[in-house]
């Protein structure tokens, strides 16, 4: 009897250990189906911190426990953007990071392999607020930091409605092995000159087996580089100042209201050789400052030409080159085309860059100009409008 009792006890012990082991193994193998960035203020599921304030950080007020009709739970996040350009940038944004304030210098982040999308809910206080982009990842990419994110995915500009709406960022096929920038948004004063108030809730990564990697499709024409200040149809940003000293030499004002060719505004560009470099130019890039470090080219293969309108302040200004494409980096433009030198008229004149026979399937550098002081000894001021692929 004693032997039997010992045998039974031993059996249950072994059974228990094996069962426990299996359960633990199952738990290890089981992958969570969601991974929250933000659910509710103080929710234990939250994994990232909205600590990375960028651009005109003085223009942004953040309330992470807004009671203003949250989508779920008790709170949502409220952002108020004043568009005052407190730091002179004309844009602002916030990154959710882990740990807080980690711009890629600290080991943190998460391995989110297996997640295939990020979903979030958003609404504007009035509707019509334009968010330049929402995104996942991107911290430290192309920068000299030890722990850069493994991917970056960003949306096109989004115009918010005054009711909650869910948005999805497709992450299928992306390398999510290290994501420190869990979520981000940026906004510009051009698109929201009177500021904006908007709300976010239930931001989370999800496993969705139905999500497939996005294959790039050719963009529909016309495809604007610039149509009007802050227009949601603008696809490129005049961020690529060349050479490095050009910021001393070139002023680019995208909201010039005097005598635009079409709409409310045109672009005013003034150039003087303050730095002594003797030449300068600007690339319109996607996204801003992308010299080929980010995989973000547009498929413009259906474009037959790029047209734009230009005029000189006085007439006779000489622009050495107007160009599309030609950025070469880790990710390179598939082709390039240019015209020039061009002597500008004082009246609006349309110019065309012929793209027939060109391979425009991948374009980061949507538009570019360059000139120099040798052919413009007094400097130049000129205007551009309605820059578009057709």
């Amino acid at each position, binding site marked *: 009897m004693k032997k039997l009792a010992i045998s039974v006890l031993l059996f249950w012990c072994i059974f228990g250990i094996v069962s426990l082991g299996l359960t633990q193994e199952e738990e290890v193998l089981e992958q969570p189906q969601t991974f929250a960035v933000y659910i509710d203020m103080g929710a234990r599921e939250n994994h990232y911190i909205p600590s990375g304030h960028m651009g005109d950080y003085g223009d942004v007020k953040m309330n992470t426990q807004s009671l203003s009709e949250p989508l779920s739970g008790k709170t949502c996040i409220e952002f108020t953007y004043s568009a005052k350009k407190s730091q002179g940038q004309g844009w602002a944004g916030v990154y959710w990071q882990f740990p807080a304030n980690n711009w890629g210098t600290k080991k943190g982040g998460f391995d989110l392999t297996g997640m295939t999308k990020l979903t979030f809910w958003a609404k504007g206080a009035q509707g019509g607020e334009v968010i330049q982009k929402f995104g996942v990842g991107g911290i430290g990419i192309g920068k*000299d930091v030890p722990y850069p994110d493994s991917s970056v995915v960003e949306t096109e500009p989004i115009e918010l409605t005054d009711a909650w709406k869910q948005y999805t960022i497709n992450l299928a096929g992306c390398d999510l092995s290290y994501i420190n920038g869990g979520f981000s948004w940026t906004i510009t004063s051009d698109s929201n000159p009177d500021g904006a108030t908007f709300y976010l809730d239930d931001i989370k990564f999800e496993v969705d087996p139905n999500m497939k990697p996005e294959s790039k499709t050719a963009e529909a024409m016309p495809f604007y580089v610039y149509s009007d200040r802050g227009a949601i149809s603008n696809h490129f940003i005049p961020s690529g100042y060349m050479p490095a000293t050009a910021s001393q030499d070139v002023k680019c004002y995208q909201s010039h209201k005097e005598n635009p060719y079409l709409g409310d505004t045109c672009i005013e560009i003034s150039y003087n050789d303050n730095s002594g470099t003797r030449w300068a130019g600007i690339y319109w890039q996607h996204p801003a400052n992308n010299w080929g470090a980010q995989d973000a080219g547009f498929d413009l293969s259906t474009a037959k030409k790029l047209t734009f309108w230009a005029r000189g302040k006085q007439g006779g200004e*000489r622009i050495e080159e107007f160009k599309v494409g030609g950025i*070469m*980096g880790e990710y390179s433009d598939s082709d390039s085309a240019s015209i020039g*030198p061009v002597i500008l008229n004082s009246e609006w004149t349309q110019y065309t860059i012929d793209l027939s026979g060109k391979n425009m399937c991948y374009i980061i550098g949507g538009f570019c100009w360059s000139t120099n002081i040798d052919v413009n000894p007094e400097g130049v001021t000129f205007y551009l409008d309605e820059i578009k692929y057709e």
Partner: protein
Amino acid sequence: MNRFKSQLGNKNQGVRRFLPLGSFFLIMVSFFFVVGMARQPKSAVYIRKYKDSRYQLFVNNKPYIIKGVCYSPVPIGDNHEYDLFSDPNKPWIVDGKLMKEMGINTVRFYEIGDNPEQVKQVIRDLYQLYGIRSILGDWLSFWDYPCPRYGDEDFREKAKKKVLDMVNLYKDEEGVLLWILGNENNYSFSGRINPWSNEEIECEPDPAKQISMRAKIYYSFVNELAREIHKIDPNHPVALGNGELLWLDVANQVCPDIDLVACIIYRGKSFGNLFESLKNNFDRPVMLAEFGADSYDAYKNREDQDMQAYFLEQQWREIYKNLYAHKGGTGNCLGGTIFEWTDEWWKHYEYAAASWPVHDTGAGWSNGSYYFDIRVEDNMNMNEEWFGIVAISEELQNGINKRTPRESYYVLQELWKNPEGKPEFKYQKSK
């Protein structure tokens, strides 16, 4: 036996009937074969064009991929006036051996020396000792003071004589591969370097048309040279040296006698649209006559051989992809000559003799396509004194600066042995 005799007899009758005609035919074939062989030079170089504008280079009827380097091994302390061909230390003997071991089969000379016997000796040594062929170039008087007056007849005649003299002197050298006319001379059309003009151009108010006029004058001149070269040397192709593909649409109108484009191009890890674009604008094969990467990280202010090796391997993979033999590419690439074999220490402060013996770490220009170190102050990331795939030092061996191959040397050595199978070289960015 009789039966056999009979049959043989019949056959012999047939042979006898055939003999006069057959003998004549054989004699004629032999005659033309012998004459043809006599006229055929020892080493005929030609380019064959296939359908879909695909091209292949042949030497002695065998396909030839140009795996080369630009060869300008200026010793430490000298500058561009150094004459390799008269150097008693014969650096090409040491270099040729290293080149052969790496897999190099071609060197490119931008311009050759004045002494024909010395030049021939270098060409012969490289070819006979190591099987390395020479591309001979001429600047087309591009650096003549005060400017290259291509718009003037007397200037063109002078430049033409110099080129034709070169061809006449060296066309029968077995080691010669082809001729390259000019380098980046086309950049003078817009006045970026060595601006030139004439009265007709000056009368044109539209600067874009001025550029086209210069292009037409220059390319017509180069085509005239090519035509003359073909008359005296039908056995070597003539290349148009050109910076990027700029203005080749004009060349397309006036250069029927150009055999290939020798493109000078610095686009980082990829040549981008180069091959396809050339096909559309000027349907000729291309050799990348000058391309590469420096081995100095201007941002971190230190040598980075990995960076150079990464760019060069990526570039060569693209060259291979666009050779005739690779069905997936454009098929219009013939190979390339890397810039360059050894570092040139004189370049950064070229007018300060005191700096020629110093390996300067300053950068002379900016190029965002070489993106690893573009964040350096003012984006000046191209270190002109660090483009060699072989480093040199002040220590002398055999009377010349000691050669030390860089990582790119070994990476390309492996790639050339097995272009399809070699694992891709990964650039490890330092933390």
